[in-house]
């Protein structure tokens, strides 16, 4: 084709293309400048586990809570120091006899469907919670829920429960306020409509959960900024994506390439490697899990407390935690975390004794004849798996005959209910201790009694704990409770695990907490 044949036409076409291109660029630049002053389009958070459901009443899992606590809100909740504070409630009043609680609701709070929240919605939510929530036992003492006017809720109890507000503000299975028409819905079948600062858009399993900024969110002006699960929450993005990225290597790679703004749960070796990287900011979320193992009191040889004591004193917690967490841990004997008002160290004399010789003597005393000590751990949580391996070797060195069974999580959970299948069951307790003393290790209490055999002393102490009328009384009881856990070896505590999180260094305002709080976070 001769180049001259289409010469004129070609030149015109080229000129036109350039002109329109230039116009396009100018337009983009202009709108780009305008956009830069507005919110950024999207914040991407990469989380590890897919949420099994987005119905906050139907799960205790962290992956559900991470997302649900952005969509929903509760009447009362916990602040930065784990104290009870109001969120959707304007005020809370407890009667002198402790049998009546009156909540005044904030006005002008809107649901994502545009309707205003009233006491009818709160009443319906509570009724649904009482009917089918996993922790409905919290509302067991409630005999009546009344809504005398559109902004008042009254709860009547049949007996005094000093810890009632603590329980009601628990975030394990939060009492999220849903629209009244959701009351009859079964677990996992609600419409995802709440009052929170982010609104549900879509959920693509294996990929992401997408939320968008709720324009009519009623900001809680009582606080200056972030405060636990409550506070003044402002969203600085149009959209927030919770990306579901199971593989830790992929999460780290995504952060490094700028694909994600913030990631949950960074492996410790990666954190060490990224420590000097100016583009990445690292965070320590302390006290994420209390690592430990349940001890079976019904199965030989751990039915004998001398054998259990031998177990307890043989272990070197530093070695266990160092290898299990690659350095992200704190050793301390308490079942609550330091800084917590109920923090006590009773039982510390049995903790981290590192005394295999003493253990041998105890075993001889107890007449241990080499019965197999069965350890169950799981392949789903690497730190539990590693802790079990180290503990097994330490116990062998102390004279125990050890057999280790490794299962995937679902099987391990099923086996825990078989009293003949295990002596030690490795786990991590997280949410319980962080919610407070009533939930810290309450699984030793009947009827759950993870140690299989009921311990009447601990049951009695727990009863006293939740009915203690003053803080001092409750704290004293908790000290005895913790002492008993150690004395009777109901649970073996190894240490506290610190969770590592990371973000791009352009992310400002992110403060690690039990959930990744994406409000008041900016990207510069």
């Amino acid at each position, binding site marked *: 084709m001769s180049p001259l044949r289409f010469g004129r036409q070609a030149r015109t076409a080229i000129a036109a293309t350039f002109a329109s291109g230039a116009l396009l660029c100018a337009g983009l630049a202009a709108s780009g400048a305008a956009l830069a002053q507005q919110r950024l389009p999207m914040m991407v958070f990469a989380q590890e586990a897919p949420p099994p459901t987005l119905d906050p009443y139907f799960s205790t899992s962290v992956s559900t809570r991470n997302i649900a606590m952005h969509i929903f809100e509760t009447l009362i909740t916990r602040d930065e120091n784990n104290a009870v504070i109001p969120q959707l409630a304007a005020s809370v009043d407890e009667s002198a006899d402790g049998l009546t609680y009156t909540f005044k609701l904030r006005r002008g709070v809107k649901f994502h469907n545009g309707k205003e929240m009233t006491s009818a919605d709160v009443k319906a939510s509570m009724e649904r919670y009482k009917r089918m929530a996993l922790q409905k036992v919290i509302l067991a003492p409630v005999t009546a829920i009344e809504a005398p006017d559109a902004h008042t809720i009254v709860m009547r109890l049949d007996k005094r429960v000093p810890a009632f507000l603590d329980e009601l503000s628990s975030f394990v299975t939060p009492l999220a306020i849903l629209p009244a028409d959701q009351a009859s819905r079964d677990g996992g079948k609600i419409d995802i409509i709440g009052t929170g600062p982010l609104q549900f858009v879509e959920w693509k399993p294996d990929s992401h959960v997408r939320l968008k900024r709720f324009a009519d969110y009623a900001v809680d002006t009582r606080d200056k900024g972030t405060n636990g699960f409550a506070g003044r929450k402002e969203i600085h993005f149009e959209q927030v994506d919770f990306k579901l990225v199971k593989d830790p290597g992929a999460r780290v790679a995504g952060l490094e390439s700028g694909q994600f703004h913030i990631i949950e749960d960074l492996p410790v070796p990666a954190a060490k490697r990224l420590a000097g990287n100016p583009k990445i900011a690292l965070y320590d979320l302390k006290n994420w899990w209390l690592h430990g193992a349940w001890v079976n009191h019904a199965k030989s040889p751990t039915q004998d407390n001398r054998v259990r004591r031998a177990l307890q004193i043989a272990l070197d917690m530093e070695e266990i935690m*160092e290898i299990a967490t690659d350095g992200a841990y704190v050793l301390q004997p308490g079942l609550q975390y330091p800084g917590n008002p109920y923090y006590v160290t009773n039982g510390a004399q049995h903790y981290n004794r590192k005394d295999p010789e003493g253990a041998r003597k105890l075993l001889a005393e107890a007449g241990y004849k080499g019965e197999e000590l069965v350890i169950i751990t799981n392949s789903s949580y690497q730190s539990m798996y*590693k802790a079990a391996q180290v503990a097994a070797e330490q116990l062998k060195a102390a004279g125990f005959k050890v057999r*280790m*069974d*490794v299962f995937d999580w679902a099987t391990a959970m099923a086996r825990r209910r078989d009293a003949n299948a295990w002596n030690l069951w490795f786990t991590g307790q997280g949410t319980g201790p962080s919610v407070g003393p009533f939930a810290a290790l309450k699984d030793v209490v009947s009827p759950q009694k993870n140690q299989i055999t009921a311990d009447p002393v601990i049951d009695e102490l727990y009863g006293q704990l939740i009915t203690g009328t003053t803080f001092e009384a409750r704290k004293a009881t908790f000290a005895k409770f913790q002492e008993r856990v150690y004395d009777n070896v109901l649970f073996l505590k190894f240490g506290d695990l610190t969770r590592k999180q990371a973000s791009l260094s352009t992310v400002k305002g992110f403060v690690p907490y039990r959930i990744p709080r994406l409000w008041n976070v900016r990207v510069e």
Partner: protein
Amino acid sequence: MAEAEARRPPSLTRRLFSHRLFVTGLVLFGIVVAMAVFADLLATAAPEKMNFRARFRTPEWAFLLGTDNYGRDIWSRLVHGARLSLAIGFAVVIVTGVAGTVIGLLAGYFKRLDGPLMRTMDALMAFPAILLAIAIAAALGPSAVNAVIALSAVYTPRTARIVRSAALVVREMDYVQAAIASGSRHMWILWRHILPNSLAPLIVQLTFIFAYAVLAESILSFLGVGPPPPTPTWGNMIAEGQGYLREAPLLALFPGIAIAVTALGLNLLGDGLRDVLDPRLRVQHG
């Protein structure tokens, strides 16, 4: 196998040993077997011994291949890992060989059994192999024995198929038809005529199955449903090394090489056997 050899011309052994790839395979596999057999002598430390202060060491005199995140000597774990990995592979070969042969012979010889038996085998083969193995291992619990059962369930149908094909062919041969017509007992015919002539493809298949089994056991361990710790297998060494891939790639590197060498040796062996035993099999077998 000895019986088959005795019936054949004596140059079989000579032919095998002059086949270059067969010999290479034999040497490679032999090295691995030696590692497993002499593990106690070759290991420089107890494979489970943890050294808290010596974690993540690079190769040095005390730790020939370095140490892992528990401070355990990788070389010692590697040689001991050979034991369990090879033992499982061998056990799978035995179980698959017996079960596959029995089913294949019955299906190939007795027309009425062919349909139901092969349908069941087809159904088992319709599962993606690794999923079937995972499910069975998860159902039975993680242990070496259960891994053997799970893997045998996966490979028996394939073996049965091969034996059946051979049996079908042999059954139609004149002398077998004559034996049937003259009223010989079925078991005797199976044992005397069908089985020996089906052996060649079976043996070749079994060497490949050994290789598959070693590979598959490593996948099972990698996914967490293999033999439990602390006994090392190459698969669980890779699984444990996966978390440190960037920072300490050596943890996962050596066991992977070990598996590859073992499987390569076995595959070369099998190929050589096939070339020598029956060149026609080259086209038939997939």
